[in-house]
């Protein structure tokens, strides 16, 4: 589906160096979700909408791990819930294996329910406190009428072992486990149906840093061993770095940059990607470069409200390169000159494809600026204003 419209998609035929070759398993075009806001007195009526997801295109290939990164509130979870059809899209199209599932009902979804599974963010609310581990993991099999050889219980024990838990924990209850262990139970539940695609919504962000790595490792191995495609949602680029062959960066309901791992981490073009990268802890980013320093960008304030997003480029209220054009024209997600195939950026004035240190820091936070006065008074363009 290579289309030459301005909102190009990461198209299926693009050879990506790290990408697992394969056909697109899940394709999304112009996916939109607006949550209506009701207000007014005495008659309630629709007064606006939270534009949580606003026209995103992406494709997840078979066996591929695709990362979706963005700040809190930019619509990542909403995207994940749309893809698993927990939410009804307002617009756009979702195609799974060639089948349009955009508005499919529960009955129509039934055959593919087992193929798309989800791992949730909160290990405490994602397991029913009243069910044993056995019925939590075995439940999906029961619903889908799966009768693995050796019985469901056998299979559950096997799955427990796969995710690194003691099979003897079969009869225990969630409250008897730690956060990391619970998350493993969640992983086992997702695996129970032998899915082809797992949407993992920030599966480690609620965990201790020391445990995060273990769970990510587990997921990574599962992905490789079992060839499951992953849509891995995270709020910083560090977690996704080792995990995903392709990464999309999301900002306020839109994808601002997408590309293979190398392009995003080493040749990012979008200012927001630069900003996110500079927030990644030193050790992980400078691994390739020997501590020669790197750019420091600090984003000011919060993400603007998705109820009333900025005109034109949504990042412009926090962008240090913003100009008049950015307010008037929405930058299309296109392949810029010098970018690899499949590396798409939505920016009128992209950055240089490097992450090397700037001469001066870009500081977009007035408070920080005041604290560090004199050290770097916003060399590149205006100092971002905290919008409020």
């Amino acid at each position: 589906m290579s289309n030459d419209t301005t909102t190009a998609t990461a198209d299926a035929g693009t050879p990506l160096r790290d990408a697992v070759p394969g056909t697109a398993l899940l394709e999304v075009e112009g996916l939109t979700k607006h949550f209506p806001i009701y207000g007014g007195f005495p008659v309630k009526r629709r007064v606006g909408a939270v534009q949580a997801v606003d026209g995103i295109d992406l494709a997840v290939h078979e066996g591929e791990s695709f990362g979706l990164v963005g700040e809190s509130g930019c619509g990542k979870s909403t995207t994940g819930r749309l893809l698993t059809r927990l939410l009804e899209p307002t617009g756009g199209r979702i195609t799974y294996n060639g089948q349009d599932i955009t508005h499919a009902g529960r009955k129509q979804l039934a055959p593919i329910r087992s193929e798309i599974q989800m791992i949730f963010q909160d290990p405490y609310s994602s397991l029913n406190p009243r069910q044993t581990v056995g019925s939590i993991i075995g439940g999906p099999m029961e619903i889908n009428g799966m009768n693995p050889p050796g019985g469901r219980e056998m299979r559950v024990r096997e799955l427990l072992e796969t995710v690194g838990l003691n099979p003897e924990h079969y009869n225990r209850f969630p409250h008897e486990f730690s956060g990391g262990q619970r998350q493993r139970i969640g992983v086992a539940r997702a695996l129970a149906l032998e899915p082809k695609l797992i949407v993992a919504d920030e599966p480690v962000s609620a965990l201790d840093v020391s445990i995060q790595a273990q769970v990510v490792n587990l997921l990574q191995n599962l992905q490789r061993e079992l060839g499951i495609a992953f849509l891995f949602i995270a709020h910083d680029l560090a977690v996704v770095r080792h995990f995903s062959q392709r990464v999309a960066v999301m900002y306020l309901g839109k994808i601002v940059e997408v590309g293979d791992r190398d392009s995003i981490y080493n040749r990012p073009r979008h200012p927001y990607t630069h900003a996110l990268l500079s927030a990644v802890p030193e050790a992980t980013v400078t691994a390739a470069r020997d501590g020669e320093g790197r750019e420091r960008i600090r984003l000011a304030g919060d993400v603007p409200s998705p109820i009333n997003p900025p005109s034109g480029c949504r990042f412009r209220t926090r962008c240090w390169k913003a100009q008049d054009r950015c307010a008037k024209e929405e930058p299309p997600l296109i392949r810029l000159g010098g970018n690899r195939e499949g590396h798409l950026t939505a920016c009128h004035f992209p950055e240089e494809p490097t992450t090397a240190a700037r001469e001066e820091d870009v500081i977009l936070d007035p408070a920080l600026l005041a604290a560090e006065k004199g050290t770097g008074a916003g060399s590149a363009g205006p100092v971002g204003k905290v919008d409020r």
Partner: protein
Amino acid sequence: MTVSPQPASVRTLDTEPDTEPVLNKGGQGSELVGRSPGQLMWRRFKRDRTGMVSAVVVLMFFVVGLLAPVISWLYGKDPYTLYGQESLDLLDDFSFPTGKFGGMSGEHWFGIEPGLGRDIFIQLVYGIRNSLLIGLAVTAATVVTGILVGVTAGYMGGKTDYWLGRLIDFLLAFPSTLFFVAFMPVVVALFVSPEDETPTYVRVLALFLVLWFLGWMGLARLMRGETLSLREREFIEAAKVSGAPPWRIIRKELLPNLVTPILVQSTYMLPAAVTAEAGLSFLGVGLLEPTPDWGRMFALAGKVYENDPTYMFFPGVAMVIFVVCFNLLGDSLRDAFDPKAGR
């Protein structure tokens, strides 16, 4: 890339638990069957002395109520015989008990009823039985209705929720006591024409209907709130993602998590229903003579308390103990179920 080579088999990797499991506390290490939240609550409840005593007392009331015919047989009296009329020395000329303390004796433990001269002990036993059974039936019906309406409203949301919410508001706005008193005759008249004599079962049915009609809204509201908050929990989404039909979600995911509030609320609702029934009979619109009734004993006691104050004593004390113990039991259950006490 900093990714280290991984072992080939998924089974062998990273099998170390990230932290020591939270179980194994208290030397239960070898026990491999986990304790369910319900079992943990039971253990917590057993440690609560007040709760256990209340539970025993409450149980006693049920036993007394259920075994009333047996008690009557053992005691050798029944609630209908007019003992005061049969033997003339039990009541004086003004129909008050002749003996001290309302005529208490080895023969009539709690004394003799002024006027008709029935045995107070067995009257009370049967009165408790009738009030308790009606209260129990009303509670069962209101609990079921409350769960159905509340869970439906909470789970469906949208228009359904809105209209059920308005219905609840409307019914809650009813002045319930006034409604009961005013509507009892109306409901009775639905079944029998006013000229005929009303059979007792019709009065019982009418009592049940009015108490049920205005009894379920509190629980429905609670259920709706709980369902709304549970519905947002991720394990519900997980069930949906694996294709669970709504009925299964309600049955397997929602209801087990609603057992606690249902149980706690029911222990508050039952004494309320019993006292409401007693109240209606007290006001003369509930059970009528000669059916023994707890509430009607207070009505009589109110009339005779100047000359026979003892008559008030036993029904009154029984009622106070009953209500207090039920509420203490409810509190203890709530404490034992409190999720904050142990996660």
